[in-house]
């Protein structure tokens, strides 16, 4: 097995003392992870292998990736043509994705539906119905795989036989929460599960916000269904606006002060129905790329 680009990328991330975001920029600009790895300087990540043999590091990482792939996971780097293009347009694009399930270019027009783990009955129904209706319109639904709103959204899309994508805050070998292990497995069969982490990565305080950034970048808009001030969903709304993506706030959210504040910002829309959402989707992510004055 030779030194591959993907092996080189993984080796770079593990051995370089530069932050991942910087390594990602360098690899994108060079168009090659092998070139960046061979150029050094390497960090102190792996002391067993001589730091001046980058190809050996890349080969070792490649063997590890091949092992993961034998379990049905795929390791996709930003150098690969099937890395989701819409995610490449945001500054928080991860250097690689691990995926299980089927990739689809149609996800460029997907909508993320997110909200609290501790949802009300009203919130759960609203998320389920919204996802179901988006799916019926042929719009892919993206969510986390948390309890509450996320679960309601994904099951709603699946119940309508629509496209559903889960972006998770752990490695693909993990199930968090445990109760969703069955749903995660089903998603890998009929949809797609995406993780920006290595397979055994546990859930931490850091991984969920990182996941929210990827979910925002993967989808063309984010709908917040029900969420308190301190929530991943509110954070995702902020990140989505920073990415230049549209944010939809369900009307019932307006009882929250934070949502009233967000509703006054540009590029946000308070919505009641799925029609309100589909009307306002970003035209540049929908393949309508001829630019006209008015």
């Amino acid at each position, binding site marked *: 097995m030779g030194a591959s680009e993907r092996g080189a990328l993984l080796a770079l991330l593990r051995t370089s003392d530069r932050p991942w975001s910087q390594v990602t920029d360098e690899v994108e600009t060079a168009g090659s992870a092998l070139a960046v790895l061979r150029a050094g300087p390497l960090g102190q990540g792996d002391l067993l292998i001589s730091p001046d043999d980058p190809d050996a590091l890349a080969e070792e990482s490649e063997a590890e990736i091949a092992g993961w792939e034998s379990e049905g996971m795929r390791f996709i780097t930003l150098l690969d043509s099937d890395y989701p293009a819409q995610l490449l347009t*945001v500054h928080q694009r991860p250097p690689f994705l691990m995926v299980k399930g089927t990739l689809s270019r149609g996800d460029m027009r997907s909508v993320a539906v997110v909200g609290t783990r501790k949802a009300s009955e009203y919130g759960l129904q609203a998320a389920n119905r919204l996802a179901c209706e988006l799916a019926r319109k042929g719009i892919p639904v993206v969510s986390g795989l948390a309890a509450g709103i996320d679960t309601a959204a994904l099951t709603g899309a699946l119940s309508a036989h629509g496209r559903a994508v889960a972006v998770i805050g752990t490695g693909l070998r993990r199930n968090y929460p445990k109760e969703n292990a069955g749903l995660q497995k089903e998603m890998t069969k009929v949809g797609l599960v995406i993780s920006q982490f290595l397979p055994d990565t546990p859930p931490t305080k850091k991984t969920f916000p990182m996941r929210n950034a990827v979910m925002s970048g993967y989808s063309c808009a984010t709908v917040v269904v029900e969420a308190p001030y301190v929530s991943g969903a509110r954070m995702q709304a902020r990140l989505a606006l920073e990415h230049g993506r549209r944010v939809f706030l369900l009307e019932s959210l307006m009882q929250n002060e934070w949502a009233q504040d967000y509703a006054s910002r540009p590029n946000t829309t308070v919505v009641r129905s799925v029609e309100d959402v589909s009307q306002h989707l970003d035209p540049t992510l929908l393949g309508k790329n001829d630019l006209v004055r008015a």
Partner: protein
Amino acid sequence: MATVEQVTAPYDNVLVPIVGPGGDRCTVCKSVVNPGYTCCYQCHKQRGNLPYTADVIAPIALSVKGGQWAHELSAYKNSLSSDARWTMTVKIGAVLWRWLELHEGHVAEAAGVRQFSIVTSVPSTRNRADHPLSGMLKSIVGPTSNRYYDLLVANAQYPTGSRDARYDRFIAQRLQGQAVLLIDDQWTSGGRAQSAAAALRIGGSGPVAVVSLGRHFDQNPDIDIYRTAAQNYLKTANKQGWDWNRCCLRA
């Protein structure tokens, strides 16, 4: 089809303005200066190195290192996905379109001309055959497409990617006094844009104004006094907030 308004609306949340006139900023590039100076080190150096420099420099927004706009200004050229490059090229083109409609008159006034008869761009110094900026200005941006010309070529004697300011870094076609609007994607030190402006003047142009899509901005430079100045500048810019109706040339 997408309209300029639709495509640029999300940028209200993305763009960080250049601090307006009257603030602590470099008189040339409008970025941060250290207390007590009117011109930043790079701009001062370039004025010493070049026989001519641009008459006006108008960055549209700050390109904050690690931020979304900085990413787009790099990735529209460097992304490995043609879909991603195209999407970003259209979006950046829409931002430029809208900004030029509102503010090109202010740039012309500052350059002492009624209008710019020619638009050109700073060419690639990385051996890129077709620079995506040139393509954007030729075929996407309404206000530039019918007066855009590739007037400059990089001098092959210089190493690729070099940022040094040199009068012969680029070679311009012969001009006859026309005022030129020179578009640059990202102004980092300004070495390339200023070299391009010098080449245009040497080629016989009239006034040259540079509009750059982003002024590179590092909010965490290594040296303490620079860092304090940079963070104060960014704080002022964020407080000012993005407003399409304001440009860095007008209060």
